[in-house]
């Protein structure tokens, strides 16, 4: 927003250099210095991306206003940039059966997932675009759970990326996450018939489906959204995961990965199954409440803060003052819990 072509180019080069060269190297360092260097890079972005920082802080205060002082907003914005840089290190530490990352992550509530699978109907683990959620899904895969994610690899859909860039992001990001997933992502896109049925078949095989449920709906999906209380507003979100749980009888759990104050340790918290009673909107509201609680507990983890267009699409802020996300190389390459989105992607960006 407001960036010149030269600034965007510089940002692109910096992002490619960081993800392609720097992060793989610092991920080989011991955790403390590695993540410290990642935080330095986050601080650099925090300082030299004033437009994004301002947008992030404005949205934070708009949605969490009463809870945030200006100093809090500043601190959260800095953490947001740091987390984005740390995520690259997380992804690189998925090497060697993910052991380097597993050493730094405590998984709490694993027993809930085990119990859910013991029921024989598979399990749906819902999260949000929150922290290193993609790494969390892959970590579960590396921990022995047969995990398949519903979500699109954004670099395959983002307009304006060259084939070389798409290959780069696939190589540097998606490849590392995919390695620990049981099956290829189920990618909803236009005209794709049977996405949910494919997910249902996976559940029937008693495997785990993971999904982020807070994706902004596309125009073509607006008719399928439900309104759910979310961060003090009535958000417009897609309840596909809940419908799938209700139809198949698979337990639906929530999972969020929180980064510790030292930036290198994380805790993946998996909840007990969310009650699926009531109609779809009612059951989905319970899931949305869990997402909102996670965001309030640690706001800097939520990916969408600097993306006003996405927040407006979710229905959290008025739809003005921001265009679609610009091509940004330092982004979440996989997002989308929209589930049953059937058009090209908008790209929430980090860092």
């Amino acid at each position, binding site marked *: 927003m407001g960036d010149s072509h030269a600034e965007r180019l510089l940002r692109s080069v910096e992002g490619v250099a960081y993800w392609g060269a720097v992060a793989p190297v610092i991920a080989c360092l011991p955790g403390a210095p590695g993540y410290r260097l990642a935080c330095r890079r986050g601080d650099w972005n925090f300082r030299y991306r004033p437009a994004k920082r301002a947008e992030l802080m404005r949205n934070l205060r708009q949605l969490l206003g009463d809870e945030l002082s200006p100093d809090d907003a500043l601190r959260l914005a800095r953490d947001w940039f740091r987390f984005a840089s740390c995520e690259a290190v997380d992804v690189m530490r998925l090497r060697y059966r993910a052991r380097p990352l597993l050493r730094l992550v405590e998984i709490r509530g694993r027993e809930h997932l085990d119990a859910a699978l013991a029921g024989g109907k598979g399990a749906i683990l819902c999260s949000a675009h929150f922290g290193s959620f993609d790494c969390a899904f892959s970590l579960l895969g590396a921990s022995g759970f047969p995990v398949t994610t519903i979500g699109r690899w954004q670099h395959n859909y983002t307009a304006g990326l060259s084939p070389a860039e798409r290959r780069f992001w696939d190589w540097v990001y998606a490849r590392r996450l995919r390695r620990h997933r049981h099956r290829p992502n189920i990618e909803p896109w236009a005209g*794709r018939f*049977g996405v*949910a*049925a*494919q997910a249902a078949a996976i559940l029937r095989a008693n495997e785990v489906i993971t999904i982020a449920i807070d994706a902004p709906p596309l125009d073509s999906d607006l008719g399928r959204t439900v309104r759910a209380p979310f961060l003090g507003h009535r958000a417009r979100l897609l309840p596909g995961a809940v*419908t799938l749980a209700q*139809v198949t009888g698979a337990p639906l759990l929530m999972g969020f990965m929180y980064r510790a104050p030292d930036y290198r340790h994380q805790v993946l918290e998996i909840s007990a199954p969310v009650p699926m009673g009531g109609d779809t909107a009612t059951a989905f509201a319970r899931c949305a409440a869990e997402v909102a609680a996670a965001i309030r507990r640690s706001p800097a983890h939520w990916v969408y803060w600097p993306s006003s267009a996405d927040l407006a699409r979710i229905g959290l802020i008025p739809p003005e003052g921001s265009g679609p996300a610009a091509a940004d190389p330092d982004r979440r390459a996989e997002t989308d819990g929209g589930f*049953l989105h059937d058009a090209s992607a908008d790209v929430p960006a980090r860092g």
Partner: protein
Amino acid sequence: MEDVVNDYISREIVQDPALLPLANETSLLDGGILDSLSLVRLVVFLEERFQVTVGEADLLPENFDTVNAICSYLRARDQERREAAHG
């Protein structure tokens, strides 16, 4: 069989009353009646009601485009099952 399938789709899946009564040859896909999630509902119903297992490979538009196509698919599966039972 057509009546059972038509009745279920009309009751549980069709959202727009203007589309009723549903003809057996009406396209469920072109008409926007059947989307990915309602397909799951339909498959679960068919499996319970007609004691068949719908495999992933069978989840093709041509098998689910109309009530007639669904019933043809179910009959073909039933035939396969009988043949398998008789060796």
